[in-house]
């Protein structure tokens, strides 16, 4: 589903070069739920950006559904972002002059989806995050937790196979953070959406099926606590 093949990403050059991702390899299977932890600057966001095709690797390859993201045409890459990958950020990035439902429908509008279809899918996405009652509200009149739920609905409206979530609970209090996490767990369990979550919060990280630790752009090598039954696996390599 998502495959990293010896991926290195260097920003800048010469003295100011920064190796954000360092010879990273892993494979996330369909329906998996991984979380990514690590110190600030470890390269977590870059790992997500490379999957969404927002930046390309210096060497190695990132494959999504078997296809090399960096080798996609501009049109294909845009399609990947608009139809397959839902992205949730810490800053909700809602457009202030649009209502909740208009924000949620935006990816579909950009993708040229017919209005009939939009009118069908937007309410369903709002329902999923329990925000139906706020459909006509503007972002500034919503609480942080509500804004994040709208942002998640916007990521889900495209019916994504993959959800990339970069500190989605970072700006929320515990109760709202937990609600967002419950939603992600539910998406994964009920709809088999593949999820990669970046978080600093160990309680939330541990809700995934597997926790990866990134240090200086590579996976920290730890012991493999064997993944039988309900056990959480935390090593970089699969069994």
């Amino acid at each position: 589903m998502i495959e990293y093949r010896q991926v290195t990403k260097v920003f800048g050059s010469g003295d100011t070069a920064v190796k954000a991702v360092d010879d990273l390899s892993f494979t996330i299977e369909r329906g998996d739920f991984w979380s990514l932890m690590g110190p600030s600057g470890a390269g977590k966001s870059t790992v997500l950006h490379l999957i969404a095709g927002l930046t390309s690797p210096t060497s190695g390859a990132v494959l999504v559904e078997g296809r090399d993201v960096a080798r996609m045409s501009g049109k294909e890459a845009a399609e990947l972002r608009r139809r397959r990958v839902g992205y949730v950020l810490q800053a909700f990035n809602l457009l202030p002059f649009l209502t909740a439902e208009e924000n949620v429908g935006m990816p579909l509008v950009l993708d040229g989806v017919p209005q009939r279809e939009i009118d069908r899918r937007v309410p369903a996405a709002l329902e999923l995050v329990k925000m139906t009652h706020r459909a006509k509200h503007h972002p500034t009149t919503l609480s942080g937790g509500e804004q994040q739920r709208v942002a998640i609905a916007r990521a889900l409206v495209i019916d994504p196979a993959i959800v990339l979530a970069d500190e989605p609970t970072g700006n929320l209090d515990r109760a709202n953070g937990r609600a967002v996490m419950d939603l992600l767990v539910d998406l994964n369990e009920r709809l088999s959406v593949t999820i990669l979550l970046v978080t600093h919060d160990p309680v939330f990280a541990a809700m995934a099926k597997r926790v990866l630790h990134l240090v200086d752009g590579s996976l920290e090598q730890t012991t493999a606590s064997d993944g039988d039954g309900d056990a959480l696996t935390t090593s970089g390599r699969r069994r």
Partner: protein
Amino acid sequence: MRHSHGVHQAVLGVVSRNPEGIHGYAVRLQGERLLGHFWRLNFGEIYRILDRLAADGLIEQIAGGESVRKVYRITPRGQRSLDDYVLSPQTDAPRPLRQELAVKLLFASSEHLPELLRLVARQRDAYLQELHTLGAERRKMHRAPFDAFVTHLMIDGAELAARAEIAWLGEVATRLRERYGAGATGNATA
């Protein structure tokens, strides 16, 4: 709950909630419902505790049961003992400092940085595993048809403790890397 001070009182408390009497099997079921993950008593332990509570006169067997099982109810003395316990100050001591890891850090040499980091990571992973279990427990309790108020509080407490340990272990790893890692300068001896 295993081996903790409150085990006998927990069993006594479950018996007290059943004025019409309760047998050992039901004590276990009710205990699990009330305390979930934190109630870890097997049948053998429960029967031993019930025998002990009966010997101390805190509970009594109800006579003439048609069942072969022993059915217990709380005595006035048991109720007084339970009330006293509920209102008495906590005896839980604060956790000791993490002596084991501290000793290892003191006496390991700097060439062993990778091994030390693995040690720290393994301990962190154990807490992450605990958090994973607690999270599953919380979701299970959420769907439970009964009031799991205390269990939720217990899970909150256990999560906060694990979170603190993980934060500290992260700090240890970062400082070890700074001090002994490839980029570190200067004194390698503690």
